[in-house]
């Protein structure tokens, strides 16, 4: 914790984007870069600056004079030397908390001869490689549950493609949240609490201090009695519901009624389980075992709650099946 706090200052500006969890994910990641030409080096530079856990560069080429013009991470003194080693040393300088390693070997050789090499990584970044090798690499990574990111650049154009089996995202900060106040289905204690209030009471001070949520709970009950247990659904019914509330309002200073009318939408827009969410709950991956990732364990737990406790529990889980940045590769 102390070490992390010390690094907080260095990472302050990016912590404000992805927070502690994002930073932890970065720092726990082991990456592998195949080919450290300009594309690979530049990509790795940004990751190293950000504090990636470790990076292993695989490249069997030597630094040549023509590399000096387009790769900032090689210099005159390194001509003739291993490019992987040169780039690795430079990147290490950028951030001493990153474990920078290199392997002077051609990526194609490893793919062909030692595919298990890739199983130690969280993410493999393959740059400037040919389709054939990429197809093999993709199969290897899929089998071993390693994320693959492919990048190619030509002059002023380039492409990036991501290949992974599944990417789970939990939206912890949804943009539009309507909190369910359980107005239509108060649980026992809330119902008892609501019953303690009397909207017909004479005392005006008490009347104007009845919480708006209670007013809405009672309005729901009254509505249900006269509308066959259903809730307002058409705009006419919604207007009628609001009128019922305002008819009970005794004066302009009764802010609780004002608030109740403004919040009446909560009665009919209470969130339910979306079909997307249901799909996730029904996914076979929700039958968890010892190896299941955290995401699915949480889904399994949610499933238990939903099935056994209440169907009006709210969570919003987005499921991204395919991640593509460009329409198709070429």
């Amino acid at each position, binding site marked *: 914790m102390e070490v992390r706090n010390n690094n907080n*200052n260095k990472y302050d500006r990016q*912590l404000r984007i992805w927070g502690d969890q994002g930073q932890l994910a970065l720092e726990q990641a082991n990456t592998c870069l195949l080919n450290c030409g300009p594309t690979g080096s530049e990509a790795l530079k940004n990751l190293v600056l950000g504090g990636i856990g470790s990076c292993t560069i695989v490249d069997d080429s030597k630094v040549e004079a023509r590399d000096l013009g387009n790769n900032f991470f090689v210099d005159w003194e390194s001509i003739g030397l291993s490019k992987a080693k040169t780039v690795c040393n430079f990147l290490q300088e950028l951030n001493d908390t990153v474990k920078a390693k290199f392997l002077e070997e051609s990526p194609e050789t490893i793919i062909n001869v030692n595919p298990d090499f890739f199983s130690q990584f969280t993410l493999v970044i393959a740059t400037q490689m040919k389709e054939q090798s990429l197809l093999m690499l993709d199969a290897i990574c899929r089998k071993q549950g390693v994320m693959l990111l492919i990048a190619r650049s030509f002059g002023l154009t380039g492409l990036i493609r991501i290949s992974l089996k599944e990417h789970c995202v939990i939206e912890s900060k949804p943009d539009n949240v309507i909190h369910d106040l359980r107005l239509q289905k108060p649980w026992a204690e809330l119902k008892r609490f609501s019953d303690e209030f009397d909207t017909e009471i004479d005392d005006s001070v008490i009347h104007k201090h009845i919480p708006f949520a209670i007013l809405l709970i009672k309005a729901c009950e009254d509505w249900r009695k006269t509308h066959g247990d259903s809730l307002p659904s058409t705009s006419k019914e919604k207007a009628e519901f609001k009128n019922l509330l305002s008819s009970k309002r005794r004066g302009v200073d009764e802010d609780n009624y004002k608030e109740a009318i403004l919040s009446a939408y909560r009665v009919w827009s209470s969130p339910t389980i979306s079909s997307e969410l249901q799909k996730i709950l029904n996914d076979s991956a929700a039958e968890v075992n010892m190896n299941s990732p955290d995401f699915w364990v949480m889904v399994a737990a949610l499933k238990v709650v939903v099935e056994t406790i209440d169907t009006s529990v709210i969570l919003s889980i987005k499921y991204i099946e395919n991640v593509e940045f460009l329409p198709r590769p070429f």
Partner: protein
Amino acid sequence: MATPEELAVIEKAKVLMVGAGGIGCELLKTLALTGFKDIHLIDLDTIEVSNLNRQFLFRKQHVGQSKAKVARDAVLKFKPDIKIEAHHANVKNSDFDVEFFKQFNVVLNGLDNVDARRHVNRLCLAAGVPLVESGSTGYLGQVTVHVKDQTECYECQTKELPKTYPVCTITNTPSKPVHCIVWAKDLLFARLFGDRNQSSDLIVHTNDRTSSAATADTDFFNIKDGETPESYACRVFDGVFGDNIEVALRNEETWKSRKRPRPLYICEVYSDAKKPRIDGSCNSPDGNDKHTASAARILGLSNPQEVWTVRDSANVFLKALELLLNTRQKDIGSLVFDKDDQLAMEFVTAAANLRSSCFDIPMQSLFEAKGIAGNIVHAIATTNAIISGLIVLEAIKLLMGNLDDCRTTYCLEYPRRKMLLMPAELSAPKSSCYVCSQSTLLLEVNTTMTRLREVVEKIVRGQLSVNSPMISQGPCLIYETGDDLEEDMVTQYNQNLEKFLDSLPAPIVDGSILSIEDFQQEFTCHLQIKHREIFDEEKEPDNMVLSGKLSTTRDQALPGSVQLTAVADNVSIHAVDDDDEVILIDEVAKQDLKRKVLDEESVIVCGKRQRTEVS
């Protein structure tokens, strides 16, 4: 990548970079690799630890040194054969005059504030040098091009000015965390540790003046003879969070449609427990290093991302106050708030949280509060790298004389219509722009009750961003600045500053037209004065309103183009919130791209223009 013709032009080009920070480091690298050989670099800043996650030319050992110089040295190590001249200076310095700017083929901005950008914009217009502008915040960024008489200048589109909060919101009716932080930083901290003689809005008064807070006593915040830091801290606490709130509550009008605050007293917070006491720890060895001395750490609050409770905040408030009094005696009376001063930041966070709790506003963690108090902008290397690439591409087009190919390019967070980089055509200059097209502005002000000084500060230097103004009415010089002025002129000008507008030797009244000039910026504009008696305290806190002329036909975009208006500058001073025209920094950065012409065929893709009519 470049053609032989381009390479020839690149190698001969003389380029000025303004800013050697996030964008600057990436830009210098890209320029060097592209083949540029003659680069000047201006940056007034020194390197800080928080720069190191993206300004990759700098290392830990460089902290405290000049950004421009270290950047130059780092690049020369890799490309010893190019010429880089580094200026550790403010670009507004008079050394960088029109003649200085004229020597360059193109100017590239990598700045982080609107004020400097406006200054460079004016100099580039005066010198007739094309300007490539850029900005970035987190994942967002943009690059655009300004060429005199051919395209809009930087100021053709009005930029958001730094928001000032109405005093009454800060002192009486805060509703957002930022209001409480501004109060804690600019009022409380300033009053306790800064210049005592400056008048303060810290004291709350009732309308009827029959009673006011104990804090109204001008000596209230001065430590009394024999008073221990501990009892002083408690007295201040009760004064600002208890007594002041009680007094404010007596103004019934204020609370008619607002939630009433609750006063908070020490005895309530500690009803069941002891207050943290001073012990030897405040004299610990690191107590004098402003970066490491910490009240929070002593109290066991070691996680800056954790939101403190009211009790925690009170503990930190008292402890930080004691530590500041004990370890910074010599600074008290002249201390300026610095977000990197750990104790000061903790004190401000604690005070802001306590005030927030009185007003039922959510409290903030130290980390969040620091971001708000210090106007911190989030940033990563990747976006800056992309932006620097785009800057160089535009620069090459300009050097080759291909203005038609130049674009404004937006770098988005998520692909939109399958594009992460969205280009848009440039627009023609606005005839209503008072900077590049001589036009008149309107200033509404109370000419009988406003002093010239206020107009100079708030309007001329403030909103118009003029550096060394010369103000005249017709042939009469009312005010000017400069090193070569005669003494009697200076005296006259200083006297003028204190006079009401209509009492000046050349009286400024309703209908007067003033000329505002700045020789360094080669900037001229005219200000028509309109007398007005009343101003809205909340909406017009400056007691004066500046407005521009309506635009005319010249403002239409070039045919076949898509107009995208974006509101994303890396403007670090801004805090704008969506309830009352004030959005927190994050939301300003979310670009608001409004497509004026929804015509997909007129979007430029891959540099090829589709010549279609605007439908």
